């Protein structure tokens, strides 16, 4: 039998996390649903942020969910890819900025 750590059908079971702790589970989903409501930011903007973050945290469930959500909201593939690049740029920038730390250490220890 083929075994995978990630199963795409598990996304549908996400709501089941409340089964083992209804109090915290329900609080989470209430919070989650409130976050994605139309606010100062539009639901469209929130969907693109979620898509970018999904890539940064490398969550396959979230990537499927927010690609689908983006399609439903009429977000175009060019916009989605730009959002992914924003996430990727921050992630790579976060690595690269540590280069300053490396430079500091190097300079301090070198004659």
């Amino acid at each position, binding site marked *: 039998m083929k075994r995978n750590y990630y199963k795409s059908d598990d996304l549908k079971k996400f709501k089941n996390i409340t089964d083992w702790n209804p109090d915290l589970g329900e609080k989470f989903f209430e919070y989650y649903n409130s976050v994605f409501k139309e606010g100062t930011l539009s639901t*469209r903007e929130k969907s693109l942020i979620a898509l970018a973050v999904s890539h940064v945290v490398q969550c396959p469930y979230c990537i499927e969910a927010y690609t689908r959500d983006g399609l439903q909201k009429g977000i175009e593939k060019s916009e989605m890819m730009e959002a992914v690049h924003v996430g990727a740029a921050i992630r790579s920038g976060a690595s690269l900025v540590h280069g300053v730390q490396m430079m500091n250490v190097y300079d301090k220890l070198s004659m």
Partner: protein
Amino acid sequence: MVSKSLKARNSLLSSTKRQLEILSNGIFSEGGLPKFDSNLVAYELNAPRPLKLEILQVNVGYMCNQVCAHCHVDAGPDRKEMMSRETMELCLDVLKKTKVKTIDLTGGAPEMHPDFLWFVTQIRLTDVEEIIVRSNLTIIMANKKYHNLPHFFKQNKVHIISSLPFYKKNKTDSQRGDGVFNQSITALKLLNSVGYGKSNSNLHLDLVYNPSGAFLPANEKILEKEFKKALKIDFNIDFNQLFAITNLPISRFLDYLIASENYEDYMSSLVEAFNPKAVANLMCTNTLSVSWDGLLYDCDFNQMLGLKVASPISHLRNFNLGLLQERKICISQHCYGCTAGSGSSCQGTVV
């Protein structure tokens, strides 16, 4: 991009029997997804029943100048089914005999019917309050003989409901064919120029959004806001309302779902999005659908699946509203398309 109807391609899916088999087996067989009727029972809901008849939706024929990838009618230039003038006269008789408020003309492209102008003019002479024409927009630009349609619509106070899958070219053309977006924009400008869709006018121009793929529509009001903003800024186009319509797994959309291996996931998402509140407002409760040959159906979708009304009155020629109102509405798994999320009907969401 498809260029012929399923019927012209001799596709197995041009058979309504085959479509109904697919919709009742596979993922809906034992242990899979619940069938629509059992789901109603599980939610302790009554099956939809006919309420007061308000809308007569008349499909004048399946001929169309477009071959859209998602079309549940399987319409196209190769479809020759067309309503006879005799059947149109039977429709007029029904309008005179009943208190139907709205007649909703659809197709195919209803404007391609040779008696279209005559039919609309005759309907205007009855007491019907509202005449809807479901126009694909490009027909107005397709031939010189249709260029005057905006004026004709205005003279007859026709309410125009037009498909525009998206406010940008690529998504519209991928669903409806190359060049459709630009022609639709030109047609919308013509309609605006005679007063359609303007805030100070009573000439209504509504647009229909339907997803260009295997996903459900987003919130209708938010989409409307985006369509209005984009069409105004990019093209100075105005319209009244946007209707978000869910694609139903029938005919060419069913063919697309199966060919793209999205069928099971799409049906699961419709079932998951089942909204019990949508059941009370289903369009089949206040609408009757008439096919080109005068047969009666609960809705246009049932017409395309060949599910005739479950009534001894199955044709316009022996129309009897009292008896028709006693019928049970025919349901199958495609009905999940009308109950998903905020619900879906020919007038957009229902919840």
